[in-house]
C-alpha cells in the first residue's frame, strides 16, 4: 500500500512538473501506432477476405452434381449462418427463332451471400448493384445472351417449358468464375421457376451448390463439420480456393502488413528503452535518497514498477483511442477514393493487444534498467559520482531479446521466417553497433580538421561514445525500417501495377471460326480496339507419356495431376513465342523445325506431370493420334490476360486439324453498343467479359495498397517518437554543457552550430547505415519472402541519408532549442 501511495503521488507530481511527458508520449504514440495498425489491418483484412469470399458469392461453397442435402442447411441455420442454393445447367434459350446456349443459374433468396449482382437496363451498359434476386416469372440474362437473341428488357424468353420475362440485364455476378469453364453466357432466374421449365430430369447435367456465410469462427467450425460430413462427390471450396489472383493479393497484403506492424512494435520498443534510460538517469538521486531514508530495494522497485504500470495503462488507453480515431479518420478519408464496400466494424482485439504489448515492451525494455536503478547505492547521496554497479548483461538485454522474439513470433507465426528474422535482427544490431562505433571513431579522428563549432559537436559524439552508438543504432533502425518500407512498398506497387496495367485486355473472344477470323479482326479494329494475338484453339487429349498409356501411368496420382492428365486440353500452334512467355529449358523452334512434331509446355503442366525435355507425349486430336517430343518449357505470365496455352505445337503439325481461333482485346468503357453489334454480327463467337473480374482483383489490390500506405504513416510517426525520446535522453547533459560553454565565452550561435553539427553528423551516419542496411534487407525480403523482383535504387538511399541528416538535425535542434536558449546562470545555479 505504502508503495502504491508513494508511486501514485510521485507519478502525479512528476506528471505535473512535466517529467514524464516524453516517456508517456513515446508510449502513447507507440501504442497508437500499434493499435491503429491493428484496427486498420484487422478491418482491411476482413474487407479483403470478404472481397475474396465474394468470388465464391459465399464464405464456403459446397458443390455437387446431386442436390445438396437439406441437413447441411439445417446445420448451418442451427449455427446461425446464412445460406442460399444455386442450381446451374446448360440449356438453349429462345427469343422467337433466335437461340443461344445459356448457363442457367437458378438461385434462392439471399444469393449472393458475399459480393453483389450488377445489373443494367441494356446489354453491355455499366452495371449498378442490385438487392435481391429475380422475382418468380422474371429472369436477368447476361448482355451477350440478350444481344445474341436480339432481346431487351421486357422480352419474354422461352426456357424449357416455361416463358419468363426479362426485367434486368445481368452485367456481372460475383461467382461467374475467372476461367473458361463457363463460356456460355449466364441467365439468373428464381429457383421457384426451375420446376416449370422441366429442364431438370433424371440424367440432366445440373450443378448444385450450397452457399454459406457468417462470422469467421463459426464458418471455420462449420467448415470442419462439413469436411467430416460431406458425401463423396461433394466439393468444398472456401476463400483459399478462390481465384489465384485474389488469393495472392490477400497473402501478399497479409505478409506485408505483418511486417509493417512488427516494425512499429520494434520502434515502440526502442522509444521505450530510451525513455526508460532517461527515467532511470533522472531517478538515481531519488532512489539513493529513499534508500538512505530507510527504503528497501524491493520497495523502491515496487514504486518504480507501479509507476510504469500506471503509465502503461494510461498510454494503452489513450494510445488505443488515438489509434482507433486515426484509422477511423483514415478510412473515412479514403473511402471516397475507392469503390470499397462498407468496411466491417472493428473488433476489440487491438485494444487488448495494445495493452498486452505495451506491458510486454515495458517489461522487456524498461524493467531491466529499472532493476538496475534499484542497485544504485545509498552512498550516492554523499557522492554524486557513485552510480549503480555495472549491469549483468543477461539481465540487461535478456528480457528485451525475449520480448522481441516473442513479438516476432506473434506476428510471423512461421518457424523458418521466425528464425530468419530473429537471426537477422541479432546480426543487424551487432553490425549496426559495430558500424556505429567505427563511424563515431572516424568522426572523432576527423574533427581536428573542422571549425570550432563542428569540433564541439563531433567531440560530443565521440565523448558520449556509448550513447552515440546507441542513438546511431536507434536512428539507424528507425530510418532503415522506414526506408525498407518505402523500398518494398515501391516494389510491391510497381509489381502490382506491372501485373495489372490499366489497358489490360478486358474481353476474350473464343470460338472464332477460321473463315471469319480476318473479318473478326478487322471488325474489332474498326471498333477502335486492338486484338492482342490470335491463336488457333484445338481440343485434344493427352493419351500417353513415353509410350505408357495415361490411365495406367497416372492412376492414384494427385487430384490436379490426374486432372491435367485426363481432361481434354486446349492446344494451339504458333510460330512466335508470346512476349509474356519465357523459355526456361530447351529451345523455341526455328524455321527448320516447322512440320516437326514438337511441343512446348508451360511450367505448370510440365511440373504437375513431372515431364522432362525430350519426353514423348501422345495426343488424341479429333480421333487422330499424334506423337510429339517436348522441345521446350515455358514460364508463362498468365495475368497479362493474353491468349496463352499449356501446350503449344510447332507450326506445320496441326494446321490440318479443325479448330477455331481465340484472342483478347481492350475495349474502352462505354462500348456497350459496339459489343452488342459484335455479338450480333458474329453470333458463334463467345464473348468473355473479364472487366468485372479485373475490377474485383483491382479492388482487392487497392485495399492492400491502402493499408500498406497507412501503416507506413504510422511507422513514420513511431520513428519520430524514437527521435524525440533519443534527443530528450541527453537533454540534461546538454543543458549543463551549453551553460558551461556560454559561461566560458562561447556565443549562442557557436553553441547552436555545435548542436546542429552534432545532430547532422549523427543523422548522416545513421542514414548511411540505414541506406546500406535497408538495401540489403529489401533485397532479401523482396526476392525471398514476397517473391517479387528487386532492383537496387539509388534514390531511396540518398533520401535515407539526406532525410536522416535533416530529420535528426531538425528534431535535435527543436528538442534542444530551449536548452540552448536558457540563460546559463539559471542552469548553473539549479
Amino acid at each position, binding site marked *: 500500500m505504502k508503495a502504491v501511495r508513494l508511486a501514485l503521488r510521485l507519478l502525479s507530481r512528476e506528471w505535473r512538473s512535466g*517529467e514524464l511527458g516524453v516517456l508517456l508520449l513515446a508510449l502513447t504514440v507507440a501504442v497508437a501506432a500499434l493499435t491503429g495498425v491493428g484496427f486498420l489491418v484487422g478491418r482491411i483484412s476482413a474487407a479483403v477476405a470478404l472481397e475474396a469470399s465474394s468470388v465464391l458469392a459465399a464464405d464456403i461453397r459446397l458443390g455437387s452434381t446431386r442436390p445438396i442435402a437439406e441437413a447441411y442447411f439445417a446445420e448451418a441455420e442451427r449455427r446461425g449462418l446464412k445460406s442460399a442454393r444455386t442450381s446451374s445447367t446448360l440449356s438453349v434459350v429462345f427469343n422467337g427463332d433466335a437461340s443461344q446456349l445459356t448457363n442457367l443459374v437458378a438461385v434462392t433468396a439471399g444469393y449472393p451471400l458475399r459480393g453483389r449482382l450488377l445489373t443494367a437496363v441494356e446489354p453491355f451498359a455499366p452495371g449498378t448493384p442490385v438487392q435481391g434476386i429475380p422475382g418468380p416469372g422474371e429472369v436477368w440474362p447476361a448482355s451477350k445472351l440478350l444481344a445474341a437473341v436480339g432481346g431487351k428488357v421486357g422480352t419474354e424468353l422461352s426456357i424449357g417449358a416455361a416463358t419468363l420475362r426479362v426485367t434486368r440485364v445481368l452485367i456481372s455476378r460475383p461467382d461467374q468464375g475467372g476461367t473458361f469453364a463457363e463460356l456460355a453466357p449466364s441467365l439468373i432466374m428464381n429457383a421457384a421457376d426451375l420446376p416449370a421449365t422441366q429442364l431438370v430430369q433424371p440424367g440432366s447435367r445440373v450443378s448444385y451448390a450450397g452457399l454459406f456465410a457468417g462470422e469467421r469462427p463459426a464458418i471455420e467450425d462449420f467448415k470442419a463439420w462439413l469436411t467430416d460430413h460431406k458425401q463423396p462427390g461433394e466439393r468444398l471450396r472456401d476463400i483459399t480456393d478462390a481465384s489465384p489472383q485474389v488469393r495472392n493479393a490477400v497473402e501478399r497484403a497479409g505478409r506485408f502488413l505483418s511486417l509493417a506492424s512488427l516494425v512499429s512494435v520494434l520502434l515502440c520498443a526502442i522509444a521505450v528503452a530510451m525513455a526508460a534510460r532517461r527515467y532511470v538517469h533522472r531517478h538515481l538521486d531519488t532512489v539513493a535518497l529513499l534508500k538512505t*531514508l530507510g527504503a*528497501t530495494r524491493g520497495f523502491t522497485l515496487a514504486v518504480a514498477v507501479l509507476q510504469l504500470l500506471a503509465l502503461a495503462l494510461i498510454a494503452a488507453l489513450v494510445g488505443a483511442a488515438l489509434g482507433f480515431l486515426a484509422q477511423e479518420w483514415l478510412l473515412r478519408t479514403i473511402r471516397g477514393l475507392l469503390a470499397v464496400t462498407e468496411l466491417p466494424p472493428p473488433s476489440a482485439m487491438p485494444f487488448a493487444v495494445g495493452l498486452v504489448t505495451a506491458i510486454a515492451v515495458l517489461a522487456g525494455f524498461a524493467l531491466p534498467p529499472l532493476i538496475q536503478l534499484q542497485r544504485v547505492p545509498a552512498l550516492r547521496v554523499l*557522492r554524486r559520482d557513485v552510480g549503480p554497479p555495472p549491469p549483468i548483461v543477461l539481465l540487461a538485454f535478456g528480457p528485451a531479446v525475449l520480448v522481441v522474439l516473442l513479438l516476432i513470433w506473434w506476428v510471423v507465426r512461421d518457424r523458418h521466417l521466425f528464425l530468419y528474422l530473429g537471426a537477422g535482427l541479432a546480426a543487424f544490431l551487432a553490425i549496426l553497433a559495430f558500424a556505429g562505433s567505427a563511424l563515431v571513431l572516424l568522426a572523432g579522428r576527423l574533427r581536428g580538421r573542422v571549425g570550432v563549432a563542428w569540433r564541439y559537436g563531433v567531440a560530443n559524439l565521440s565523448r558520449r561514445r556509448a550513447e552515440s552508438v546507441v542513438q546511431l543504432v536507434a536512428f539507424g533502425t528507425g530510418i532503415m525500417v522506414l526506408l525498407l518500407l518505402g523500398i518494398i512498398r515501391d516494389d510491391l506497387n510497381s509489381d502490382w501495377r506491372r501485373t495489372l496495367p490499366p489497358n489490360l485486355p478486358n474481353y476474350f473472344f473464343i470460338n472464332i471460326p477460321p473463315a471469319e477470323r480476318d473479318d473478326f479482326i478487322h471488325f474489332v479494329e474498326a471498333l477502335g480496339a486492338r486484338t492482342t494475338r490470335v491463336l488457333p484453339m484445338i481440343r485434344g487429349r493427352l493419351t500417353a507419356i513415353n509410350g505408357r498409356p495415361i490411365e495406367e501411368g497416372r492412376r492414384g496420382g494427385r487430384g490436379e495431376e490426374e486432372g491435367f492428365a485426363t481432361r481434354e486440353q486446349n492446344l494451339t500452334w504458333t510460330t512466335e513465342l508470346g512476349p509474356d512467355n519465357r523459355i526456361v529449358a530447351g529451345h523455341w523452334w526455328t524455321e527448320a523445325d516447322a512440320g516437326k512434331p514438337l511441343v512446348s509446355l508451360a511450367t505448370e503442366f510440365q511440373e504437375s506431370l513431372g515431364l522432362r525435355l525430350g519426353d514423348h507425349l501422345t495426343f488424341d486430336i479429333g480421333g487422330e493420334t499424334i506423337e510429339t517430343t517436348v522441345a521446350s518449357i515455358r514460364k508463362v505470365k498468365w495475368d497479362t490476360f493474353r491468349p496463352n496455352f499449356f501446350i503449344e505445337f510447332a507450326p506445320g503439325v496441326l494446321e490440318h486439324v479443325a479448330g477455331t481461333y481465340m484472342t483478347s482485346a481492350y475495349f474502352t468503357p462505354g462500348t456497350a453498343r459496339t459489343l452488342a453489334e459484335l455479338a450480333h454480327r458474329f453470333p458463334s463467337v463467345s464473348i468473355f467479359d473479364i472487366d468485372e473480374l479485373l475490377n474485383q482483383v483491382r479492388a482487392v489490390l487497392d485495399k492492400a495498397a491502402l493499408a500498406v500506405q497507412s501503416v507506413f504513416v504510422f511507422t513514420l510517426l513511431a520513428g519520430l517518437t524514437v527521435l524525440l525520446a533519443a534527443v530528450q535522453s541527453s537533454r540534461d547533459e546538454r543543458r549543463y554543457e551549453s551553460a558551461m560553454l556560454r559561461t566560458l565565452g562561447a556565443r549562442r550561435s557557436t553553441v547552436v552550430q555545435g548542436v546542429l553539427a552534432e545532430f547532422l553528423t549523427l543523422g548522416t551516419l545513421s542514414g548511411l547505415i540505414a541506406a546500406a542496411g535497408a538495401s540489403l534487407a529489401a533485397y532479401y525480403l523482396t526476392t525471398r519472402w514476397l517473391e517479387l523482383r528487386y532492383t537496387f535504387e539509388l534514390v531511396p538511399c540518398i533520401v535515407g541519408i539526406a532525410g536522416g541528416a535533416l530529420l535528426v538535425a531538425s528534431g535535435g535542434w527543436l528538442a534542444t532549442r530551449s536548452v540552448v536558449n536558457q540563460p546559463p546562470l539559471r542552469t548553473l545555479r539549479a
Partner: protein
Amino acid sequence: MSSNPTPSTHAQANFDSVLKAENLSKQVSSPEGALTIVDDVSLSIARGESVAVAGPSGAGKSTLLALLAGLDTPTSGRVLLEGTDLTRLDEDGRARLRAERVGFVFQSFHLIPALTALENVMLPLELAGRADARRAAAETLARVGLKDRTGHYPRQLSGGEQQRVAIARAFVTAPAVLFADEPTGNLDTATGARVGELLFELNASAHTTLVLVTHDRELAARCARTLRMEAGRIA
C-alpha cells in the same frame, strides 16, 4: 548475513556509547593502486553527544560519515549503532535500521523535487509505516518555522528554507543519531548561521546524537567534541 538486528549482532551492551567504530578502514582501487581513504579509525560517541568531524578536503570525513551511517561498507573493522553491528547487515537490513534510528541532513538538501515540503517530511515516517505521518510532519515543519510553506515544492523554496525542510525530515522520526554532511555548505553566512542554530536547538531538545561533518569552524565549535581527520586518520 542477517537482514535484521539479532542478539548475536549486539556487542557488549554498552548503550551509553550509541555509535562506535572499531578499527574502521576503507580502501578503494584507483589507477595508482589501492587507496586508503579511512585508515584504522576507532571512536565512540555517547548518547546525546554532538561531535564535529573536521579536516581538510580529501581527509576522508564524508567517507567516515558514510561508514558510520551504514551508507557504505568498510573494507575492515566494524560499526556498532546502538549495539547493532552494521557490517553484519545486508543493504536492506541497514536501510531498515536507518529508517528507525538514523536521520540525515546533506549539503545539497536532497529533497525529492516532485514532492511538497510536507510530503518530503512525511516520507521517512511513511517508510517506517507510521500512521500519523501527516500530523507529525506538519508539526515538525511548524517547529522549523515553515508552517506556511507545507504545500510548496522544493523549487519554490529558498536554499535556507529547503535546508530547514531537510532538517525537519531528519528530526521527524526522532532518530537516535543524526548525521549532517556540511549542512551549511551551500548557504550564505547569515542563512547558514540560522540553519546551524536550528540544528543545535532541535538536537538539544530531542537529545539526539549529532555527528557533523563540516568545514565551518563556528559550527564545529558548537559541538561538544571535534574530531580532526587528516589523511584518513583521526589526528
